[in-house]
């Protein structure tokens, strides 16, 4: 026995040493070390040739040690592999243990067989009994231990005590409590056993099991109090952990509370489990008191480390007794605890000081559990009878969800959803809808598709039921649709939703959102483009109906930028419509006479950055028209320029005829310059068109240039744009107009240059006659000289002839003067022959004059013919008068009379011819009503022409007599 004891001590030492070794060096395998030690000793003993009973017993002890180590190893393996999912039966892990147990047992019996009377026999049975109890499956522990007890008569013998204790433990383990009690009662009599406290503890449990609660409590209390004695093993912790239960089982929980409070400084760790046990046993009041005491302790001693556990206990308690409201209130407190704890722990570095929060998940679970339970209950009640559900229970559920949302924020989306479902289940639609909204939004945030879908389904179902007020329902429907599309832009349901959502927005006249829907629809379902375009057209139609030009303009711009791939024709149509609406109001204004406002209106459209180029140019065009209607030609042109800047060539082309009309109006409004500018613009721009419009512009261009008396510009027009017209005759017409103008102006140099540039008929001939007319009409000597020089340079037969005649006429004038100055007879003595000769010579001169110059009276130059004829008349007048006036000196009276009479007759002949010339001339002028310089110049008084001048004395007419 001593050896056995020694072995135990050695083993203990070894274990502790091993433990120290293991503790000291982590890598040291304690088990190996121990096994090595034991097996080494075993080998030594086995190697001994003569093994006496002591040795054999020692070997039995060593086998027991080895058995223990093997069991330890097997157990470790069992624990490790079973957690790895190895599903082998447990026994398989302990095969080695069982085998070694059998071997050890065999050794023991072999030892007894060999030494049947050995003093070690009771020890052998004791060891066998312990081995059977701890490692065997042969249920022989009782037998062996009883044998041991039987072999030791002395009740105070330590082996007997150990055996009785072991047997008591065996019965205890085998739940043969009554039998255990017998032996424990014996064991506790040995007061020197340091394990007395353990035996009392076990005995208390046996009493408890046989429902002898008083004895049980006494025993366990004894164990507690004995533990204070250092002679005994201190198992107060175990006692404290269990004594509470004892009181509970004994239906005396408050005594337990008192025990704890009295004997422990910090009974909290024990009170809560006791409370739970009391709760489970149905001691509600007592449990509440216990928990309340715990709370008091926590508060009083400032032990926040227990608060979490206490809250848990409370939750369990309230849940147990269906005190849901209290449960919820505690849940709320619990949530606040965690909030504070989190905050505190964040600031605290020392782990020991941190508040416990490990129970958070359990707390969440408890709240979820209750919430789920109540939710189902409420729904069930509701199903059975609409009016029967418990409002309080509902509120508890909702509050629990509130708590969970705070506490378990990673699953917020679930709680939102559950909350919404709760409302739904009790038909509180008004609350359900916003709750679904919350759930959806949260699902969106955390990307939880599953709950997102569920929430959508529920919300859509709710809106489909139309149980909410119309506006609200719509609001939620819109939300559901739009968020669904955000979640799943491409989805079977979404494909249906797009047009529905569009309809809603369209009905609300929210074009921005309606179009956004279409845009997204198009992005994900381009195959539905036609439908999308149809929808958008409806939006536009609405704006057209409303005459909402701002919106329409915005969308036209969008369409132009490619929105929904509208065709060019469609976009143009929309633009035209927009333009028409925009313009209609101002056109009406103009029609009603408020042109200034109308013009301003069109101008405002032009400057507005919202509108497209097409609309702007139309606006500018209308502005131009209105300005023109107000007579503001320059402003009109300015606006036309602006319009042109925004037009494409095609668009401008379409406007040509209209612009022609505007140009016609411009000159009719006396603005020839602007009208000319218009023609130039068009001729240049559309030269290649060569059509009637171009031709008319051409005509107007020449005309307006000439009205402004700018022949250079008019001619420039002819040369620059001659290839831009389809009526070549306009060129010659234009030239004719320029010629006529130059001639009218009496512009010799201009006309000369013109004829040099256009040396064609009829200008060449007209030019000669114009110069001829001017030569005779104009008084400027310089001009006359220039004309003569020009005639010479022309080298034309006709003008050469004219030159000859003109020269001849000048000569005739000189010769006339000579004839006028001539003196027929001035001698002092009359000589008939000499006189006759002189007269004859004079008359020959007159004859010569006539012969030389008579042809001039037939000149094709009318003025010259008239002047020449007048000249002749004057010459004959002079000759006749001169002859009649001859009064020769030195003649007697009778001769004088006869002479004078004869000369009078001669003179009269010439005077008669002169008169005849005059008569003929007058008749010719009268008959032909000649209106030439010549006829005017001869119509004079005292050689002074008539001051009456048809232009100066003529009168314009303004009206007719009324």
């Amino acid at each position, binding site marked *: 026995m001593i050896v056995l004891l020694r072995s135990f001590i050695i083993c203990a030492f070894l274990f502790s040493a091993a433990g120290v070794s293991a503790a000291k060096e982590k890598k040291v395998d304690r088990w190996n070390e121990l096994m090595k030690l034991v097996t080494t000793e075993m080998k030594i003993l086995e190697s001994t040739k003569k093994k006496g009973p002591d040795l054999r017993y020692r070997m039995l002890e060593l086998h027991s040690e080895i058995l223990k180590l093997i069991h330890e190893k097997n157990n470790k393996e069992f624990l490790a592999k079973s957690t790895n999912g190895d599903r082998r039966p447990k026994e398989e892990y302990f095969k080695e243990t069982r085998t070694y147990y059998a071997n050890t047992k065999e050794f023991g019996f072999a030892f007894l067989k060999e030494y049947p009377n050995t003093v070690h026999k009771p020890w052998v049975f004791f060891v066998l009994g312990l081995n059977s109890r701890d490692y065997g499956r042969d249920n022989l522990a009782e037998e062996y231990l009883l044998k041991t007890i039987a072999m030791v008569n002395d009740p105070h013998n330590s082996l007997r005590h150990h055996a009785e204790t072991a047997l008591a433990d065996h019965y205890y383990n085998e739940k043969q409590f009554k039998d255990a009690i017998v032996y424990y009662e014996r064991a506790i009599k040995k007061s020197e056993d340091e394990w007395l406290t353990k035996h009392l503890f076990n005995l208390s449990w046996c009493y408890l099991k046989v429902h002898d609660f008083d004895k049980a409590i006494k025993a366990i209390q004894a164990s507690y109090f004995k533990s204070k004695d250092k002679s005994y093993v201190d198992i107060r912790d175990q006692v404290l952990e269990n004594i509470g239960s004892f009181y509970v089982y004994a239906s005396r929980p408050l005594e337990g509370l008192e025990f704890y409070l009295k004997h422990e400084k910090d009974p909290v760790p024990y009170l809560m489990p006791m409370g739970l046990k009391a709760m489970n046993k149905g001691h509600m009041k007592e449990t509440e008191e216990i928990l309340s005491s715990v709370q008091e302790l926590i508060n009083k001693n400032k032990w926040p480390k227990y608060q979490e556990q206490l809250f848990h206990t409370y939750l369990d308690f309230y849940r147990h007794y269906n005190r849901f409201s209290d449960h919820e209130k505690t849940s709320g407190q619990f949530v606040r605890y965690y909030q504070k704890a989190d905050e505190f722990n964040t600031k605290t570095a020392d782990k020991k000081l941190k508040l416990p929060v490990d129970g958070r998940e359990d707390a969440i679970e408890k709240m979820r559990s209750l919430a789920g339970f109540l939710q189902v209950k409420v729904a069930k009640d509701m199903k059975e009878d609409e009016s029967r559900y418990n409002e309080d229970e509902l509120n508890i559920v909702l509050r629990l969800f509130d708590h969970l949302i705070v506490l378990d924020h990673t699953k917020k989306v679930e709680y939102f959803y559950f909350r919404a479902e709760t409302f739904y289940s009790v038909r509180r639609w008004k609350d359900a809808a916003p709750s679904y909204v919350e759930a959806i939004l949260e699902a969106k945030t955390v990307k939880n598709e599953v709950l997102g879908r569920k929430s959508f389904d529920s919300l859509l179902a709710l809106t489909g039921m139309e149980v909410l007020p119309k506006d609200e329902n719509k609001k939620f429907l819109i939300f559901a649709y739009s968020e669904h599309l955000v979640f799943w832009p491409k989805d079977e349901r979404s494909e249906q939703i797009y047009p529905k959502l569009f309809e809603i927005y369209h009905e609300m006249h929210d074009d921005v959102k309606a179009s956004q829907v279409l845009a997204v629809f198009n992005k994900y379902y381009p195959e539905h483009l036609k439908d999308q375009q149809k929808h958008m057209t409806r939006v536009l139609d609405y704006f057209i109906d409303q005459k909402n030009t701002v919106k329409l303009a915005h969308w036209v711009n969008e369409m132009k930028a490619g929105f929904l791939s509208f065709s060019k024709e469609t976009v143009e149509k929309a633009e035209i419509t927009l333009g028409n609406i925009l313009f209609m109001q101002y056109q009406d204004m103009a029609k009603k006479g408020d042109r200034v406002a109308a013009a301003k209106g069109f101008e405002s459209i032009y400057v507005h950055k919202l509108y497209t180029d097409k609309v702007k140019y139309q606006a500018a065009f209308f502005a131009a028209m209105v300005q023109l209607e107000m007579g503001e030609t320059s402003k009109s042109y300015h606006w036309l320029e602006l319009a042109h800047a925004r037009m494409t060539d095609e668009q401008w082309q379409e406007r040509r005829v209209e612009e022609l009309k505007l140009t016609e109006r411009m000159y009719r409004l*006396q603005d020839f310059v602007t009208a000319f500018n218009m023609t130039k613009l068009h001729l240049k721009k559309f030269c290649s068109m060569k059509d009637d419009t171009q031709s008319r512009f051409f005509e107007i261009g020449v005309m307006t240039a*000439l009205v402004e008396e700018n022949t250079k510009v008019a001619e420039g027009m002819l040369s620059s744009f001659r290839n831009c017209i389809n009526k070549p005759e306009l060129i010659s017409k234009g030239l004719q107009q320029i010629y006529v103008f130059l001639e009218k102006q009496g512009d010799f140099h201009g006309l000369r240059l013109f004829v040099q540039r256009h040396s064609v008929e009829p200008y060449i001939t007209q030019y000669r006659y114009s110069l001829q007319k001017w030569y005779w009409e104009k008084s400027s000597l310089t001009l006359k000289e220039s004309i003569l020089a020009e005639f010479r340079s022309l080298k034309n037969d006709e003008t050469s002839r004219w030159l000859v005649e003109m020269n001849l006429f000048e000569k005739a004038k000189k010769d006339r003067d000579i004839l006028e100055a001539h003196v027929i007879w001035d001698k002092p003595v009359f000589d008939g022959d000499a006189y006759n000769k002189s007269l004859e010579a004079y008359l020959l001169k007159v004859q010569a004059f006539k012969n030389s110059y008579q042809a001039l009276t037939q000149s094709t130059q009318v003025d010259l013919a008239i002047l020449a004829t007048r000249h002749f008349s004057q010459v004959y007048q002079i000759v006749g008068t001169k002859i009649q006036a001859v009064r020769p000196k030195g003649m007697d009276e009778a001769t004088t009379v006869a002479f004078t009479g004869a000369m009078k007759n001669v003179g009269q002949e010439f005077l008669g011819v002169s008169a005849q010339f005059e008569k003929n001339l007058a008749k010719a002028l*009268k008959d032909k009503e000649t209106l030439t310089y010549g006829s005017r110049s001869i119509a004079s*008084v*005292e050689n002074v022409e*008539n001051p009456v001048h048809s232009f100066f004395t003529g009168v*314009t007419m303004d*009206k*007719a007599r009324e």
Partner: protein
Amino acid sequence: MKTTLIILTLIILASCSSSRIDRKIDNVAWDSLADESYLRWGESRLEKQSSSQLPVINCYKGKAKETLVQYKKDYEKLVGTSYYWLHIGNCYFVQDAWSKAEFYYQMSLNESKNATVKSIALNNLGLIHFKHEQWEKGKELLKESMKTASEFKVPRYNMSQLYLQFGHYDKAIELLTQGPFKGSQDIDVYFSLANAWLYKGDLEASGKYFAQIPKDHFRREDIAATYALYLIRKNDIKGASEIMKARERSGVLEITAISQKIEKMLAVKMKEE
């Protein structure tokens, strides 16, 4: 120095020159053309006349520019009226803008279907041609005007001026004494007749018409020059001289030249006397 004087003279002459004689008649009794033309209406007569119905009156009041602007503004209101283009033309005529006047007269002629308006347009166009010394064309237009509306006096009067200018005195006399002018009292008609008879050589007949012209009109340069010639023919050199001295210078270069000729002649004759 001489060159300078010549240049100065030319400048003075140019600045004083005008295109037409100022023949304003203040007394309507002496204006037989009053109901066909505002050209000879004196200031007081024009002031009395409202321009609301016929805005062209303002052109004769010296407001041609503004009136033309107003015609522009009133285009739509007035373009359908008979005289719209005519009156614009007349306003330009008053401003000596001959090309533009001609343009609008032509427009009136082209666009109007009204015989009266056409006749008036033809008359006015005729006058424009006279400005450009296109006598035959002018004459044709006047003839056409007279044919289109034979009751009008003005075209007949204008034709008479043309005849006088070119020495067809009998025709001028016939126009001014027959038809619508029979029995009419008019400064220019009497002057024209006096002129015609003078240039025909019938001083007596000429004198009768001169006697009917109110004295203050003898200050008009063309009348003064003609009357001076008459007086010269009558050997009243002094009288002629006084008339010429008292005349108002018209500024019309052609008439100025005639006046200078007469003055030279008078100077010589006075020396001879």
